[in-house]
Every structure is written in structure tokens, then in C-alpha cells.
């Protein structure tokens, strides 16, 4: 069955594993409702997003994986987020599948995607005051230097949130730039003789 015949706004998306379509954000809620009620895709197994990188339009693509409990088929629906790069938006599907609630909160937490109509859009994995969206491509794996969230603990122990050391790690380098600069160890976040382990009581 080709969903494109029923929903003219769908656009085929190249995929090897299961049928996949691109859907404009405006049609997303109606499409999802119809897929669940009329096409047997009763389960939303996964919902996530992909960041295409800074400066790209569209930058954030929300990806939904549905599962059909009768034919045991997967279906992938991808939908580009609307709005500005700093505050992308997409309608929520949490009223269709209750499980989407947490998935969307995770996407908000990791990418900063606003789900319009979500009843309780808060951070879920990081703490509430965390200022960044870690899975965005411009966010470094090591993180940024910032204050520890509990001020009294920070005062007593002197702990700060610091970039994690990258030297010696199993990490590979990116594609662009000369080797001397693109390797994580070149960014000198390591603990060495010159740069001691912050606050540690053990040897540097």
C-alpha cells in the first residue's frame, strides 16, 4: 500500500529498511492521527530528531518511527521543523500517543525543539537550569565550563562543571582542517603536568 496515494502532501524519503516519507510540519498531526486510527500504525515506537548542522535549512528534522501491530511493519515519518534555528518548532503528537510526551521532552532537552501544544515541555535528562542543547552539532562533546547547579555544594567543594578531557580517549577526528587541529587532543582539554586535574585529590 502506498501512503502517497492517500496523502498527497507526502514525499518519498530514501530508505532501505522500511517505507519512509517526508511530511510538512503543518500536516503532521492530521497524518499521525489518520495513521493510527485508519492505517493500523497503533504504536509510536520512537521519536527523535536529526541536526543537519549550523546554517542548514531546514536544520532540525523530527523523525518518527511507527509500528503496525497487525502487519508488523515499521514506518518512518520525517518532518522538518519550522521557525528560527535558535527556536525550531513543530506540533506535538503527545495527545495521540501518550508515550510521545517523554520523547518530545527529550528532543526539547537535547535539540531545543519546541513542541507546540505539549502539556509539560521541560527538560528531562539534564537539570532544569541547564543552558545548552547538547546534541546540537555545534555543542562540543566535552561540554562548556559553567557553575555547578547547587551553589552550596559548589561552595563547600569547589566543584565546577568543566570540559571533559579528550586526550587519550578513543575519539576520532572530524573531517575538516589539518590533522594537528582536528584531533580532540589538540584542543588541550587534557590533564597533564601543566594542566592539573581540577579539584582532584589524586595525582594530576
Amino acid at each position, binding site marked *: 500500500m502506498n501512503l502517497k496515494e492517500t496523502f498527497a502532501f507526502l514525499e518519498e524519503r530514501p530508505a532501505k529498511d522500511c517505507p519512509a516519507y517526508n511530511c510538512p510540519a503543518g500536516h503532521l498531526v492530521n497524518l499521525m492521527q489518520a495513521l493510527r486510527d485508519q492505517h493500523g500504525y497503533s504504536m509510536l515506537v520512537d521519536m527523535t530528531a536529526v541536526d543537519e548542522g549550523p546554517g542548514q535549512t531546514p536544520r532540525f528534522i523530527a523523525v518518527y518511527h511507527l509500528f503496525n501491530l497487525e502487519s508488523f511493519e515499521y514506518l518512518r515519518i520525517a518532518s522538518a521543523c519550522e521557525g528560527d534555528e535558535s527556536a525550531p518548532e513543530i506540533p506535538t503528537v503527545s495527545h495521540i500517543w501518550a508515550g510521545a510526551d517523554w520523547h518530545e521532552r527529550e528532543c526539547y532537552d537535547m535539540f531545543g525543539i519546541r513542541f507546540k501544544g505539549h502539556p509539560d515541555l521541560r527538560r528531562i535528562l539534564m537539570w532544569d537550569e541547564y543552558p545548552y542543547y547538547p546534541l546540537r552539532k555545534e555543542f562540543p562533546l566535552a*561540554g562548556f565550563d559553567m557553575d555547578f547547579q547547587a551553589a552550596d555544594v559548589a561552595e563547600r567543594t569547589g566543584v565546577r562543571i568543566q570540559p571533559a578531557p579528550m586526550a587519550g580517549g578513543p575519539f576520532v577526528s572530524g573531517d575538516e582542517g589539518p590533522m594537528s587541529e582536528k584531533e580532540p587532543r589538540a584542543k588541550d582539554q587534557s590533564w597533564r603536568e601543566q594542566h592539573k586535574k581540577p579539584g582532584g585529590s589524586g595525582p594530576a
Partner: protein
Amino acid sequence: MTTATEQDVGYNSKIEGNVIFSSADAIINWVRSNSVWPMPMGLACCAIELMGVGASKFDIARFGMEVMRFSPRQSDCMIVAGTVTYKMAEAVRRIYDQMAEPKWVVAMGACASSGGMYRSYAVLQGVDRILPVDVYISGCPPRPEALIDGMLRLQEKIRTEKSMWQIKAGRPNPEKLPTGPR
């Protein structure tokens, strides 16, 4: 020193043969080291090996440490078993603060000791940044034997402490307090 008479102690003949002279430190440390009550701060994978140590095959009861207390008030050794994230670090520190002196900390596994393989924005790179750690145990996760070995090392460490001085001073050993970034 005068010999105990019948007027001093009711059962003179028995006590006479059982008097032991020792330093107070040695007695206190002996008692403390053989009744370590761990507080299992089970955070991740290491907690499973910690359970394994408590269970039938490895049986930490052989060393007087099977009394796992989930209340910090009732325990004196925190075993930090697993990855401490920044989000969790606050809770770990607050639980440590609730433990009564004297108290010790064992960093079980690579994550608790140094952040281990999780070099990322969310993970505290070693629990020693918020707690004074007494024993580090390597491994990801450490084998149960390694944990038992670490606990025995902790016993050895406890036996060398100046406990009487700490009690007299009415405060914990200043060496053990965290000092912040160095």
C-alpha cells in the same frame, strides 16, 4: 597499677586473666575496621557487581561488611559504584553529608574514580572532585574480587588512623576534608 580487688569488680578472678593492655587507637580501629557498614551508592553497572559481592558466591559477609545500609545515617562507608553525572553529584554529596563521622569513601570502578570512558558534557570526571576518596578501585566494572580487595585495603587504612586524637579533638581529621580546586 593496682590489682583489681573483690571490692572494685564483682568477678575478680575472671577479669584478672582477661586484661589486655593496648593503645586506645588500636582497639578503636580494630573495632571500626571489622564492622564497616557500607552504604551502597549504586549508580550504574558497578552496582550489579556490588550486588554480586553481597550475594551468595562472593559473600562479603566473610569480612564483616555485609550490613548494607541504604540509609546514610546508619552507614560509615560509601561505596560509589557507577558513573556520577553532574545531575547526580549534588545528591551524592548531600547523602555523604548526612553520614555520621567517622566515614570513608570507596570509588568503585573507572567512572567513579576518573570519569572512565564517559568523557562527556554530562559526567563528573571523578567523584574525588566532590568527596574525599579513601580507596580507588580500577576496572570497568571491577570484578567482585577487586572490590573485596579494595575493602580489605580500606580496613588496613582504618587501622592506621589516629582515632583517639579525632575523638578528643571532637572533629573529623582535617586531612580528610575536601579542599576544593588545587
